[in-house]
């Protein structure tokens, strides 16, 4: 398939997601496209970023040569701190997550089911080294879970599906999905289309989705 010329770019997906980050929110951004969300939060909104390894008030990467190898984010990249930052230990950090104190997390996905089940940590391939990190904690604890993902795999397989075939990260945890083709909410009835990307028809998105999409009213 050749979808490359329609739909949002990766940065545009991050930008679209950023519109939904409320002012004053405490937010955890996953590695990859989700990290890009921070660059697009609209002017005038103050957002406090949490990283699992013990920091609230994370800022952007340091200028070259000015970093501290002991000031990193969950992706083990060097970062900076903003005014008002605080350090804390790992158990307190996940108390914030598990205890429902974070407002939003944004994660990547391998698959999302219409029930909101998320698979994003393992393809279950034989011989692969399983590695879960904090993903299961985030989806179990954060108030609102957003997913940013390409609508399909590089091979054109649907990533939004009736039920996940990959090992789950959590059951019924996803609230909203931002793809290159659409913004989709998980509602009781399944995948509710909120908006379609410019140039994307409902049918075009539906063809690339592994479950029924519910059109806007």
């Amino acid at each position, binding site marked *: 398939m050749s979808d490359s010329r329609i739909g949002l770019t990766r940065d545009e997906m991050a930008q679209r997601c950023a519109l939904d980050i409320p002012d004053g929110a405490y937010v955890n951004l996953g590695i990859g496209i989700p990290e890009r969300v921070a660059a697009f939060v609209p002017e005038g909104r103050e957002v406090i970023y949490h990283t699992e390894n013990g920091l*609230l008030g994370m800022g952007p990467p340091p200028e070259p040569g000015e970093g501290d190898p002991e000031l990193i984010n969950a992706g083990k990249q060097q970062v900076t701190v903003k005014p*008002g930052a*605080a350090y804390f230990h790992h158990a307190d950090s*996940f*108390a914030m997550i*598990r*205890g429902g104190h974070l407002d939003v997390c944004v994660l990547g996905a391998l698959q999302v089911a219409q029930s909101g089940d998320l698979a994003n940590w393992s393809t279950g391939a034989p011989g692969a080294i399983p590695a879960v990190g904090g993903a299961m904690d985030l989806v179990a604890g954060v108030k609102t879970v957003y997913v940013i993902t390409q609508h399909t795999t590089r091979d054109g397989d649907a990533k939004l599906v009736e039920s996940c075939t990959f090992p789950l990260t959590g059951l019924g945890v996803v609230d909203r999905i931002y793809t290159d083709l659409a913004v989709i909410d998980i509602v009781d009835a399944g995948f509710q289309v909120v908006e379609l990307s410019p140039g994307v028809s409902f049918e075009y998105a539906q063809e690339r989705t592994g479950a029924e999409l519910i059109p806007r009213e």
Partner: protein
Amino acid sequence: MINKEVGSVADAVADVFDGATVMIGGFGEAGSPIELIHALIDQGATDLTVVNNNTGSGEVGLAALIKAGRVSKMICSYPRSTNSTVFPDMYRSGRTALELVPQGTLAERIRAGGAGIPAFYTPTAVGTPLEDGLERRTFDGRDYLLVHGLTADFALIRARVVDRHGNVVYNKTARNYSPVMAMAGRTTIVQATTVVDVGELDPEVIVTPGIFVQRVVEVADPAHESELIAMGATYP
């Protein structure tokens, strides 16, 4: 811009509702947010469940809240103290109920509530009257009791310094329950001697990160319970 400061203790507690669960920081007078408690008395909410290590002293602060008939239940570990006369009367007359919890179990239940842990096992109180009603289970040959996390609608905290993001540092042993109560309160309200601008606190020394705090209010010259009692003060 995030600014959690409110203008007065009255504003800070304005939405406490009848029937709310309220955690109140402090161990005896150390860390007791007297001005917030007095504002809560003025505000009028009633049928409260209050979580505190004690039940107050004299007729100010927590004791005054109990005396005013606002507290239908206390969850605490040590309701009997010097100068504690209000609670015994209310308890004996059946107007304030008591859930007695060992001190360490109380602190840990509050932390668990704030950390999203619904229940945990503890060795404390096995074989004692406080085991009543709890499930006992053996791990590695030792007996433990299942106890539940505690959360609250509001937590009232007294601190030394807080910034406008809600980052808190305490004073000495006035820290006690406050950091875990801040975690367990859905709306955590901090009165501090000084409210400072964001960025004035060293990120290494913040005890309670602002994510656990929803409102801050400056009380520049807070009262000490023992001094009020020595003066014969009552509230209101």
